């Protein structure tokens, strides 16, 4: 990990309330990997106070830029959405554990919900480069939340909307159920999105006998393992730190 000042290369609206932010990645910092994250100090003053964590959505080694996809949720992401090309960002990263690559010969089933799209899209790109078969599912509430641009559709991603305004009608979890029989132990499930979706994926993977890796969200104070603030419940009792042992966990390690 490294702390550095990045320069924003672009901040593009993707869909209602969603943005893609591209920024320079310091050459001396380790390279971004899918599932790992970084923290940003969003304000110079004390509102909001804590750094905000975001997952990488892409890394372009030639350009030396990293990207994230974020949703405007509160004050911090509101400030980020108002940033422009040329503005600087105080970054610490990369942090946490990446998604592990599937064992040889396995294929990957990727499931993203809402702001989970960033790390899952990055993972899809990386797996495809490694020639690993990927199917991808993206769920959101309604069509206006589907990122513009045709990267999702072009990659053959199955799109699910809760209200049926585009693609499969229902949640990503509903969709998984509809394809349940076609998935077996030769598949590794990767998921990032709201807690209920992650739980559905975990249970689905359990029933189908396949491994499942999830990326979890928790409020973070330090982001580097020092404060025990980001604890999540572990399957064996006790807690694990989302920022250090996670944010990616084998879903069997967690208490659901």
């Amino acid at each position: 990990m490294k702390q550095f000042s990045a320069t924003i290369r672009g901040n593009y609206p993707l869909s209602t309330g969603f943005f893609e932010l591209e920024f320079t990645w310091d050459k001396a910092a380790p390279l971004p990997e899918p599932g790992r994250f970084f923290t940003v100090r969003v304000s110079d003053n004390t509102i909001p106070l804590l750094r905000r964590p975001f997952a990488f959505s892409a890394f372009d080694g030639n350009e030396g830029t990293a990207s994230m996809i974020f949703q405007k949720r509160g004050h911090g992401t509101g400030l980020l959405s108002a940033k422009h090309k040329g503005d600087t960002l105080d970054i610490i990263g990369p942090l946490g554990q990446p998604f592990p690559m599937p064992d040889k010969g396995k294929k990957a089933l990727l499931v993203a919900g809402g702001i989970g799209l960033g790390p899952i899209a990055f993972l899809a790109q990386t797996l495809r480069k490694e020639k690993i078969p990927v199917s991808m599912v993206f769920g959101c509430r309604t069509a206006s939340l589907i990122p513009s641009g045709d990267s999702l559709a072009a990659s053959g991603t199955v799109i699910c909307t809760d209200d049926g305004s585009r693609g499969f009608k229902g949640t990503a979890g509903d969709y998984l159920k509809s394809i349940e029989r076609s998935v077996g132990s030769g598949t590794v499930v990767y998921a990032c999105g709201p807690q209920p979706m992650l739980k559905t994926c975990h249970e689905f993977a359990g029933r189908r006998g396949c491994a499942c890796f999830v990326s979890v969200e928790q409020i973070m104070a330090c982001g580097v393992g020092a404060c025990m603030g980001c604890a999540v419940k572990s399957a064996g009792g006790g807690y694990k730190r989302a920022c250090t042992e996670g944010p990616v966990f084998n879903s069997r390690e967690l208490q659901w």
Partner: protein
Amino acid sequence: MSMDLRIKIGNKILPNPVGVASGTFGYGGEYEKLIDLAKLGAIYTKAVTLEPREGNEIPRIVETPSGILNSIGLANVGVTRFLSEKLPALAKLPCAVVANVAGATEAEYMAVVERLESAAQLWGYEINVSCPNVKHGGMAFGTDPQQIERLTKKIRALTKRPLIVKCTPNVTDITVIAKAAEAGGADAVSCINTLVGMVIDTAAKRPVLPAGTGGLSGPAVRPVGVAMTYRVSRAVSIPVIGIGGIMTADDAIQYLLAGASAVQVGTGTFVDPSIPVKVLEGIVEYCKIEKIASIKELHSRFSQP
């Protein structure tokens, strides 16, 4: 002429007045890649208890205006693993390593200190009698001067190392607590720990933290910390370590002028890990401009109201 940054506490010397506060810096290693730990005056470890503790229910952190509320509890690896896993790496650092000690009973505090005495690399102890996040434990001690004095005496009998008692701000008169620690033989007092606070999730209609209340820290509490440091400095004749909401050198200098001999940065490190080092640089710069040669001289330049 350059400034003498050293601070004597008990029978030892801190290389400089800027430390990192207990619970906000883990066991040091976590921040190793981000800052030069050798520049720190002291690392105060996460609280060490006799047995490992899982800590409180989640979530444990919520933001407040210019502050954070935490309910970590005393989540820590326990004294045995502290000695075997954490201390060896810490001991390689040139800065002072101060173990923050907590317990539910006098006996537990004493048992932890006895175990830690075996570790030659430890610089000293900060006795946490003031954690607002532990129901049966720290808090009871923290508000009762008689218990503070007795506990301090008992720990004093176990060690020659610098012994710092950390005071809670959640009392009517913090000077009574500090004086009790001094009477018990403490070499210094540190203040403040966190203020008791609560944030309620109005949609869920319950406190955000499952424990109900948590400990408030960060810039929001700085005026409270400075006022208490000011009062305690005038009540005791041992050194005072100022803590609470330090984000800049100016904040730290307020504590030093108020009478503190050293400071700790807590929440500020979360916001920007370079703050402790920048604070030290800023203190040095200020003293250079103001032609101040030592922390003692800084104290003498304060105009008392």
